[in-house]
Structure formats: structure tokens, C-alpha cells
């Protein structure tokens, strides 16, 4: 998401707690003042926000389904308009909603950072919520006399650069929309960045956060975006200046990535960093961006390409075709380009050597 000119104006921090061993909730701790960061702390904070939500991040665009006037999206819609005093007061509702949504005893507590500000050239509003889990770390201490270094155990640290330990959700006001809005999706672009969601089967683990708490669902456009990703990635691979056998490997990898990989999100960065060298990674990401594929992650939905993914096909100009189920193709078909005999005019030709690691079962 393009968050240039990001200005963070107000930050308020509340604390939420893990459920007791009996499964009971504990009221969140309310904060009564805005948090002020000095310049370097603010820069580090912005960097965390951009690492989580900016371009090439793992953030996923979602859709608001909870349009209820008591739901969190409606609350956010109101919060951004409030003065500081009321903003501090009402933002506590967010912490209460998170406490309720954390229905499992295993979900850890942490702090809830609610912050608002403006972004982009048109200075539109945004509100974001970070749930940062508290973890422990060491602090370096140096004796002023002896210069000796020792480590002090710090039980509660937050917002370290590792994005695995916080979840971020953000509401970005759209550049233009009709007022009054009946559908909050017309006014707000919503994103979440959650390490869990991009893990294998992460949807379930992250469900409480994106659905119960935020009232989001996966966007209806996922299937279309997934299809566009697949087609453009295939085009990119077929244009690569590498031999056919390498292309075949990459197409197999793409099929596996789309079909078998258990992550519920896909992203250009993720795919390219797994299968391309560094230079090609950048070219791939650029190619995909030009083709209109999101620069952040997006949710995977292979509905429109399921049939394509089932079979891998290779066609030749004289109507020769080889086709096989993708997983069989990957393991049993080897393709290699070889120089052929010169044609009638003496020009060199290119032939293809195909090895099928199986005996013929039937001929017609």
C-alpha cells in the first residue's frame, strides 16, 4: 500500500490480558493520555508500520463484513473524527473488543496501540491498531567505570523489528467516495498484516483477529487476483532468457506454489524469493507490478484456475502435445532443448528431447 507522507498524529496505548486459567476475561488496562514519542522513537515506529503495511510487505487487503453500528469498523469510522479527549476515551472500546475476541486461553495478552494520522498526497485519514505481544529480551548494560558489558533481563519488551510478534490492522480513507456511505467498504480500504495468516493453515489461527475482532473477511476479488497472478507469472517465466528445461522447472514450481502450498496468501515477493535469483526477483516483482498485481500479499483463491492447475501442458508447433497431471509432470517428464539437424535452407534448428520416465501403456 502506498503510504507516502505518513504522518502519525495521535497514539494511545491500552493493555489487554490473557484469559485466566479458568477461561475468564480480565478487563483491559485503560490509558488516559496520548503517548508522545521523540523523533527517533517515532521514526522507528513508522518503520515498523511501513514494514508491516507498506509496499512489498506481507499485508493483505481485506474486506469489511461487520457493518453493524456496534462493530469495530463503525467504531473506527467514528473514532477518527473525535477530539483527543474523546479519542482516548473511546479507543478503549477497541481494547475491550479485542479482549472479547481472544476467546482461547492460549492467546497471549499484550498492548493495543491505536493511532491515527494522515497519509498520501491528498492527506487522507487513517487509523491503525497494533496488537503487540509482550516478550522478553536482554538489555545491554555497560559499567561506566570498567566499561564491562553485562546483560539485564527485561521481561516485557514490545515492537521489536521481528514482525512475528505483532499484528497490525489499518483503515485507510479512500481518496474519493460518495457521502453518506452505506457500505463502509466504499470509504475505507482495510489491510491486515499478521505473520500467522501467511503461515500454513494460518487462517484458523488468525481468525480471531481478522474476523472476530476486526470484522473483516477475505475480499471477493481474491480469485480474480489469484488468476491474474498465475497468468502473468506464467508469461514472465516463458519470456525468461533461460533454457526450456529451466522454464519447465519454474512452471512446475509455480503450479506447486499455487496448488499445493498451504499458505492462505500469496505474494510476488514470496514467490520470487523462493524460486528466482536476486536480479530476476526484482525483474519479476517489477513485471508483476506493471501488470497490476498487488505489491503486498493477497489472499489466495484458486477457484478460477483450478482446472488449469490440474494439468501441465507443453505444445509444439506441429500439433504435438504433451499433457500430464501437474504432480506427475513434475516427477516423470524431463524436457531439454537440443540442436537439431539443419533445415532445407541449412539454417540451424532447435529440437526438444523429452524423457518420460515410464513405459507406454497404450497407443492409438
Amino acid at each position, binding site marked *: *500500500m*502506498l*503510504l*507516502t*507522507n*505518513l504522518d502519525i498524529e495521535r497514539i494511545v496505548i491500552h493493555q489487554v490480558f490473557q484469559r485466566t486459567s479458568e477461561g475468564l476475561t480480565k478487563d483491559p488496562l485503560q490509558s488516559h493520555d496520548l503517548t508522545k514519542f521523540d523523533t527517533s522513537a517515532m*521514526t522507528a515506529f*513508522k*518503520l515498523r508500520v*511501513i*514494514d*508491516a*503495511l*507498506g*509496499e*512489498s*510487505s*506481507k499485508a493483505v487487503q481485506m474486506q469489511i463484513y461487520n457493518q453493524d453500528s456496534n462493530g469495530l469498523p463503525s467504531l473506527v469510522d467514528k473514532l477518527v473524527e473525535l477530539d483527543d479527549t474523546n479519542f482516548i476515551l473511546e479507543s478503549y472500546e477497541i481494547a475491550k473488543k479485542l479482549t472479547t475476541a481472544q476467546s482461547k486461553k492460549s492467546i497471549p495478552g499484550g498492548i493495543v496501540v491505536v493511532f491515527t494520522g494522515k497519509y498520501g*498526497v491528498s492527506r487522507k485519514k487513517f487509523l491503525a491498531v497494533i496488537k503487540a505481544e509482550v516478550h522478553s529480551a536482554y538489555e545491554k548494560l555497560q559499567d561506566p567505570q570498567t566499561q564491562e558489558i553485562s546483560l539485564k533481563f527485561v521481561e516485557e519488551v514490545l515492537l521489536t523489528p521481528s*514482525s512475528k510478534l505483532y499484528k497490525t490492522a489499518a483503515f485507510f480513507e479512500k481518496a474519493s467516495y460518495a457521502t453518506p456511505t452505506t457500505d463502509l467498504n466504499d470509504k475505507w480500504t482495510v489491510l491486515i498484516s499478521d505473520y500467522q495468516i501467511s503461515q500454513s493453515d494460518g487462517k484458523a489461527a488468525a481468525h480471531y483477529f481478522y474476523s472476530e475482532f476486526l470484522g473483516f473477511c477475505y475480499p471477493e476479488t481474491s480469485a480474480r487476483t489469484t488468476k491474474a497472478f498465475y497468468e502473468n507469472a506464467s508469461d514472465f517465466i516463458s519470456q525468461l532468457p533461460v533454457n526450456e528445461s529451466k522454464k519447465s522447472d519454474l512452471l512446475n514450481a509455480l503450479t506447486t506454489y499455487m496448488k499445493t502450498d498451504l499458505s492462505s496468501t500469496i505474494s510476488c*515477493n*514470496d514467490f*520470487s*524469493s523462493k524460486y528466482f535469483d*536476486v*536480479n530476476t*526477483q*526484482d525483474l519479476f*516483482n*517489477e513485471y508483476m507490478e506493471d501488470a497490476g498485481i498487488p505489491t503486498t500479499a493477497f489472499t489466495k483463491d484458486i477457484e478460477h484456475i483450478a482446472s488449469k492447475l490440474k494439468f501441465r501442458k507443453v505444445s509444439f508447433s506441429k500439433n504435438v502435445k504433451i499433457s500430464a497431471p501437474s504432480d506427475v509432470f513434475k516427477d516423470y517428464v524431463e524436457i531439454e532443448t537440443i540442436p537439431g539437424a539443419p533445415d532445407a535452407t541449412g539454417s540451424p534448428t532447435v529440437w526438444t528431447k523429452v524423457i518420460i520416465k515410464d513405459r507406454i501403456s497404450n497407443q492409438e
Partner: protein
Amino acid sequence: MNENEFIDKWNAEKPQYAAWGAYVIEYISSGLLKNGKNLNEFLKIPVKYRLKENQSLLDKAFSRKDKNYKDPYNEIEDKVGARFVVLLIDDIRIICEIVLNNSNWDIDSCKHFDVDRDRDPLLFTYQSVHFVVRPKTDLTSNGSTIKAGTPCELQIRTLLQHAHAELTHDAIYKSKRTVKPKVHRIVAKSMALIETTDDFFSEATRYLNYGPLQEHNILTELDNVYFLLTNIKPSNQKSSLVIWDTFEQLIDENLINLIKKFVNKYEHIGETIKQNYNNNSVYPQSIVLFVYWMLKHRRTILIRDWPLHMSVLESFAIDMSVSLQVDS
């Protein structure tokens, strides 16, 4: 003019010659500064004018058999002289251009090693460039009046040519003994070697200073884009060379066009640079545009190979809202 009259005249005119020598040096030095040269680095020996010693002048005027002067006082052109010693043959050309482009003085090109080499291709001997410059009209400098036609001899040579000249001048020219042919042969061999080495020095320097950056004129072009965006003249530092060096493989004839297209797409860039101008040392340099472009289009390699402190890159990542997180 007898020897006494000669010396009296010379003593009387010394201040005028000194002023002319100082003026010529000042003129050439300021020309070099305008060329962006640091005089302390460019000139390998500090340059100062030198007035001929009385005795040496008398020797030259009256005793030397090889010079047959009719009017020795006016015919001797090196009564004041200045010597510019530089590292490379190409550096000599820079000084020659400055000398030749001044239309306020008359120039005699008395000696140039290029001409000597053409004339005597088999000879390896003293090499240097000599000019005699004379003001076309009377002029006043530092309170002294310099008459039109006052000569000043300029010698321009490389450090190696200078070393050869020192040896031949002091050890051979002033030798009390007859110099044996063998010595002449050795000195000639050393000149051949010096000429070869000077050529190698030039070649090495050209390779050092020539790469894709120069080939595609990237620096000037990028400076222009920077100025158009910010209205500030970029002040490029060594840190930018480190960055260019790291990402040299990305420099090609398209780069500037890609960056131009890119800055048109992200209109806030000029404003962002101005706002952060003092935040780190890269903002005042035009390479900041290349870094922004890389963040958007060559992010992976940028993060992997970034040669400066990470906090510098973080600041640009915030400006462009690009995540620096990489999958491990």
C-alpha cells in the same frame, strides 16, 4: 650593453618581472580551480615563480657558446619562469588549454614533447612543454606596472618527466667531467621508460575513471533531474560513489529515463528530499533518486547489498513506504 649596465637594468626591472610571474601563476591556478581541481592534489610540486640569478643570467647572456644573442637582455625569455608539475600527460593538456585560451597575452609555443617526438621519433631525451607568455598591453598587478611584451617562461611536465629533467640538468648538464656515451645511453633508456610509464599511468587512470557511470553520463543527468525537482544544486560526496560502485551492474543507457519516469510518477519526491535535507548525508546528493528508484524496482538487491548503515536506508524506506522486511 656591457655586463654592469645589463645587471643594473635587470635589478631595476626585477619587481616588474616578479609581478608578471605572480600574475601568470595566479591566472593559471584560478583556471584550474574553475576546472574543479584541488591545487594541492593536482600540482605535485607547489608552483612559484623564479627570477633568474644574476650570475646565471650573465653566463647565459655573455658566456654561452651555443647562444649567439644580438640583444641578450630582450632575447633571454626565461628571466622569470614558473614550473607546473603534474601527475599525468592528460593533466598537462588541461594547463595548456588554460594558457592557450587567454587572448590577453601573446604565446610562443617553444617546446612541446608531442612535436619533438614527431620530429625526432628515434630520440629519447628531455621532455616538457614550454611556453613564453607576454602581456599584449601594459598592465598593473599588485602595484607594479608590467610592460607589454615582458616574457615569462612556463614549463609544464609530468612528475616523471620532471625527475628526468632534474637528473639531466644537475648531474649531466652541470657535470664537471665529460659525460661518457654510456651515461647518455642510460639516461636515454630511462627517458624511454618514463615515456612508457607515463602512457601506462594515463591508461590506468582512464580505466579507473571510466565505467558505465561515465559512459552514460549518469551523474550530470541525475544532477539535472535532482535540480529540477528540488531547485537545490546537489552536492555529491564519496558515499554516493560507494553506492554506485555496489550497484554498477544496474547502470545502463536506460537508467536515467527509468528514473525520470519514476520521479514523474511519485510527485512527492522533491518535497520529501527538501524536508529531510539535513537528516542524513545522502539527501543532498542526486543519488538519492537512484536509491528511491531501487526501493521501488530493485528492492531485493538493494536490501541485500546496501553498503551504508541500515538506518540510512530505513529513512528512505519510510519516504517511499516500502517494507524492508525480508523472508529468511
